[in-house]
């Protein structure tokens, strides 16, 4: 490798995943001026605010036989998105994706907590009673129809228009869907170990990764090349 002319050598600015402190500092802005949920979650509560929000979302997208699905009133006999680890996928993705940049404010928010608070805020608009319930995020306490209403409102009137946060309005559901039907948390990319057949594969009758399939039929009208 040739590095002909070195002009300078500087340490890279800190990078990597958003840490918990920055995370909560960002939340104060969300809670205080944007999401309007009032009191800020304490650190321990914040974990439940996040994981319950995205488990509630996973149950909405791909219901299963878990308590989040049961709570929403739409459940199935088989495991669903919650069991596939969709919540962790959404959370990891959002935490790694951002900081969310809020308009011209120069405030950077960490991902998952910001969106979890957003879901909670929309949930309380649909049903103020959703604050009360078994889960640490109001969204997870809603019925399936109420969740749908909260998400419709998020779709129809994304918050903070012209900021990066609008991206999540659509991405939240799709990321939960990816997390529900991909390998989900059955695979750990750090150890490269796949533990068992993911729930999402079983539900969709997917055979899993393969080096090949016997699906070659031939060529349409036996034509293997076309004229120039």
């Amino acid at each position, binding site marked *: *490798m*040739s*590095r*002909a002319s070195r*002009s*300078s*050598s*500087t340490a*890279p*600015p800190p*990078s990597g*995943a958003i840490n918990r402190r920055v995370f909560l500092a960002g939340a104060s802005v969300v809670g205080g001026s944007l999401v309007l949920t009032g009191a800020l979650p304490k650190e321990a509560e914040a974990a439940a605010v996040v994981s319950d929000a995205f488990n509630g979302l996973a149950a*909405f*997208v*791909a219901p299963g036989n878990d308590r989040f699905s049961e709570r929403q009133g739409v459940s*199935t006999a088989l495991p*669903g998105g919650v069991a596939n680890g969709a919540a962790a996928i959404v959370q*990891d*993705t959002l935490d790694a*994706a951002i*900081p969310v*940049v809020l308009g011209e404010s*120069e405030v950077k928010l960490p991902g998952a907590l910001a969106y979890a608070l957003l879901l909670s805020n929309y949930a309380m608009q649909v049903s103020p009673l959703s604050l009360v319930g078994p889960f640490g995020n109001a969204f997870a306490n809603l019925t*399936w129809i109420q969740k*749908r209403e909260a998400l419709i409102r998020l*779709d*129809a009137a994304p918050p903070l228009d012209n900021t*990066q946060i*609008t*991206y999540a*309005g*659509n991405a939240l559901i799709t990321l*939960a*869907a*990816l997390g*529900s*039907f*991909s*390998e989900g948390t059955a695979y750990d990319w750090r150890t490269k170990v*796949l533990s068992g057949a993911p729930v*999402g594969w079983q*539900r*969709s*009758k*997917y055979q899993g990764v*393969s*080096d*090949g*399939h*016997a*699906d*070659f*039929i031939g*060529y*349409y009208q036996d*034509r*293997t*090349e*076309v004229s*120039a």
Partner: protein
Amino acid sequence: MRDVIVIGCGGGGPVVAKELAARGLDVLVLEGGPRFANPEQEWSRLENDANNPTTGYYRVGPSDRERSAYPRALPQDSYVWQVAGVGGTTLHYYGNCPRAPRGVFDGYAGSDAANYDVDHRFPFAYEELLPYYEWVEATLPVQTAAMGTKESIFFRGAEGIGLPVNTAKQPEAPSFRPQENAILQPQGTAGKAEDPRFPDAQGCTFCGHCFQGCSMPRGAPRNLKAKRSTDNSYVPMMLTADAWTGGRPAELIADAFVQKIHTASGSTGVPRASGVTYELPDGTKHREDARIVVLAGGAVESPRLWRNSELPNPNGWVGRGFTDHHLDWVFGVFDEDTGNSKGASSSARADFPGYGGLENGGLPPGLQAFAQTFSDSGISGARRTASPATPAGADTLGRIVGRELLDSLQDVNRILNILVLTDDDVESQNGVSLLQPGLGDTNGTIPKITMRHRRRSARTLRNREFLAAKAVQILRAAGAKSVHRMDWPPLILHSQSTMRMGLSEADSVADAWAQSRAVAGLYIADNSVLANSAGAANPTLTTQAVATRTAERIFTEHFGGDPWVGREEPVCSIDDRVTEAVIARGL
């Protein structure tokens, strides 16, 4: 001082590098992402592991997956699917290589001439690009796609609505056909076995993982992997140019993100590109100088680097005019096996010149669920959003969630998807700008991608509705028991024309030779330089043909050489001389 520095090793950059390396120039290629040297070991082909936008091995970010991805500001619901790494976004791609329709080029006078993006034609005629198309097609190589179950069902539907089959390279009228694609045709046990091995199996093994990277057939040398993403085709050639021609191998440095393009004052008063500064993962910065700089960072990063380098932008068109084929997705649920998760992802298409095209798209279940839940029309069955899309004859419009998602995905191999590729207009409202200074990552201010999808031009919206309706008809004629239209928000897989070449100085960044108008010696060789959306043709072949022409221009204009396209025989990337050099050098 190098002869040429190429910034970015994706769909376009390696083409210029390979061609100029073959002419014996001293070429340095700088790629900001990783180099995947052992794909059979490195790529799990699992969907979240591969395709997660922030943590996947295919993402826009540094090699070290513990470090954050590079952020993009998306001020609307949208999603950008690109890859940083040697091969760039072709690591993801499906290898489809249609030529752009004649109507997108200058001088076209067919009866449907007014039906194209007439204000933004390519600044030369189709006949001018034709020899370069042929050169790239022979190099990759491009072949007629093999047929699997999902293609046979698509063809049944296309026949069912009365479309004729096209047996030529160019569609002259509405028609359907197998794709012309850059995926080696199956030979031996490929496509016939669950556990194929090279050399018994050659070409496409029908594994179904185009989106997660092509490392098949297992055991094949890198340049004989089935899919001709540039890591398997042009990159092995550029690195072995001495072996298959009398050239000089290009040098490739991965994990080298270019943060600035330098200029010096030029003789004509126009600044002249003089070199670049790039950063390595250890944080060190390095400067290299060259006679010619080629920008090929892709349609998002090229304008970003331009702006972060504070290069001149006299007419304001750097970053503007983004086209993305305003993609949409229509799928049918069948009572029969469709082979949705098997085979090359997309081997069938229908073309509607002046409107765009349709192609099938096979997916494993995670991405299938992703595709079925991404919509600008809200949740299916609930009240509508302000999207201008209609059901276009489908049973549902909008996101499929809850029990409906479970029902439709009961068997991933009973679904047939059709991707709508809209011939969309260049519009100055859509583009890549910089977020306000200070909001950046290590490589400078973050790019902001604005796509006003609900306010696309009347022609763009018309085309998309027309094509969605055709997709619905094909699925019904093929026997789908239910058909669903998604109305995707911008799902940016095909990204073009943000540094467009053009006839007019008023609305283009590059001239007809892909040289920047504002900076001498700076050429553009990725999708960003396309003049328009290439009539909804999947863009890479056109970019590679233009890049070949650009390489020839650089050689003749700046290095006193002779042209070669149309005069010499192209060497194919699977030529034995390339293979032997790849094996001998452990590439």
